């Protein structure tokens, strides 16, 4: 459940009042977008809407509440908890994760230091992506990724906004607590962007299960090795593998005897085979299961589950 009052506090006062009048459930909201001098928008149940000053949702732009520069700046102050300096690293990457695991994407004018982005100023665009915790959303996937009470090395593949982090979170919870396919296992989670656990001061705000240890805001490659050495997990879970450092760490983790569950952006097995980053892992059959998500008929739909040879083992649901 999204704590509405807690969440709504990150908005400027005027926008807070508007959102308070919304007639939709916060569980159905996927995104809220703010752009200076542009209408306030949201994506709800997969559809895009403009929000009026009275908190009504409209399909047409007319009547949409125009976000002012001050409102956007006020919102940024609250998002950063009056402490922009504390989010320097996140700003450099273009997002801030707030309490509850909601991700705030930002855009504006970048300040460069040589070729590297040093900071972002004149932040003029904000995209608030809501983190959803859906208990039991992994129920149908679990029998495929657990074979004879053993967890398979699994890669969740999905385009953005198809629910891969939500699915990963529930898989972690169910593996950690134990389920009807296997007993509870110790899970180590490296949560680089605080999206999986939504940790606040180190304590996960989302339910990740009773046997889960969380390394919050830690780079994946370093975090995976750290967990293997310090917490002896049976399973390691990471979100959005993205560079060769992560791939090297994955190889080490697998050689240490830990099971790995990871996610990556993509939309098909072919996509993954074409990615230089993952080619080697696919060729060496490191992952035993590939779960592909899509959102054609709603978020979190499973398009296919493939084994290490690339055979689709998904029976029609």
């Amino acid at each position, binding site marked *: 459940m999204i704590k509405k009052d807690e969440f709504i*506090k990150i908005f*400027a006062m005027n926008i807070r009042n508007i959102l308070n009048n919304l007639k939709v459930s916060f569980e159905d909201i996927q995104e809220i977008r703010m752009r200076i001098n542009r209408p306030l928008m949201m994506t709800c149940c997969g559809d895009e809407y403009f929000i009026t000053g009275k908190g009504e949702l409209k399909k047409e732009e007319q009547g949409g509440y125009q976000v002012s520069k001050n409102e956007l700046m006020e919102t940024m102050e609250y998002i*950063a*908890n*009056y*402490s*922009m*300096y*504390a989010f320097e690293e996140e700003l450099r990457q273009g997002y801030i994760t707030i309490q509850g695991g909601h991700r705030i994407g930002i855009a504006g004018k970048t300040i460069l230091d040589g070729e590297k982005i040093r900071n972002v100023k004149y932040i003029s665009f904000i995209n608030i992506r809501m983190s959803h915790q859906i208990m039991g959303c992994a129920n149908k996937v679990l029998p495929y990724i657990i074979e004879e009470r053993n967890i398979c090395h699994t890669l969740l593949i999905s385009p953005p906004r198809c629910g891969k982090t939500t699915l990963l979170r529930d898989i972690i919870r169910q593996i950690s607590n134990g389920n009807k396919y296997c007993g509870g296992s110790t899970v180590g989670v490296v949560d680089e962007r605080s999206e999986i656990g939504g940790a606040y*001061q180190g304590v996960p705000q989302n339910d990740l299960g009773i046997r889960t240890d969380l390394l919050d805001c830690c780079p994946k490659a370093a975090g995976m090795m750290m967990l293997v050495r310090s917490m002896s997990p049976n399973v390691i879970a990471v979100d959005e593998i993205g560079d060769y450092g992560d791939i090297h760490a994955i190889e080490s983790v697998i050689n240490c005897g830990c099971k790995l569950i990871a996610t990556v952006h993509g939309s098909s097995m072919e996509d993954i085979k074409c990615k230089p980053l993952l080619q080697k892992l696919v060729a060496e059959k490191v992952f035993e299961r590939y779960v592909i998500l899509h959102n054609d008929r709603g978020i979190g739909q499973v398009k296919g589950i493939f084994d290490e040879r690339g055979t689709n083992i998904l029976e029609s649901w």
Partner: protein
Amino acid sequence: MIKMLKWIGIVLVICGSTAAGISLSRDLEKRVKQLNELRKVVVMLQGEIRYSNAPLSEAFHHVSLRIKEPFAIFLEHVAGHMEEFSGETLNDIFSQHIQEDLKYTSLLPEDLEQLKRLGESMGYLDRQMQLETMNLYLDQVNTACEEAAEHYRNKSKLYHCLGVMGGLFLAVIFI
């Protein structure tokens, strides 16, 4: 009987005047102590920012647990107020609690004004700038602290003596 009352009055006047002198001297001493505590607050805040990269409300809360009053309650109130996201700027919140929580300290109005100015430059900019702004404030507090200590050394005995002598002077006039 009247004579006795007169003597009692004289003793009371001398005691009162001496106490006033001691109180003034204590105020000077308390200012030195409070400026030192303020210096400690800033150093600890710098530590929170430098090593744990904590946002201000979290840093204020952590530091408030390790320092003495009245700064502990001041920082706790500022942190609590910040977490309400009530539509006020950090500067407004900081100033408001300086007025409310540090009103009855021995700090001088100029000390409180300097602290307010620190509030104006907190929260934005990058970490380096944040730390340097605090360093600048720390320099100001150090200077104020040295001056206050010097003032205390020079004036404390004077206030004691003036208290006693003033009492005696009044007593002589009454006699």
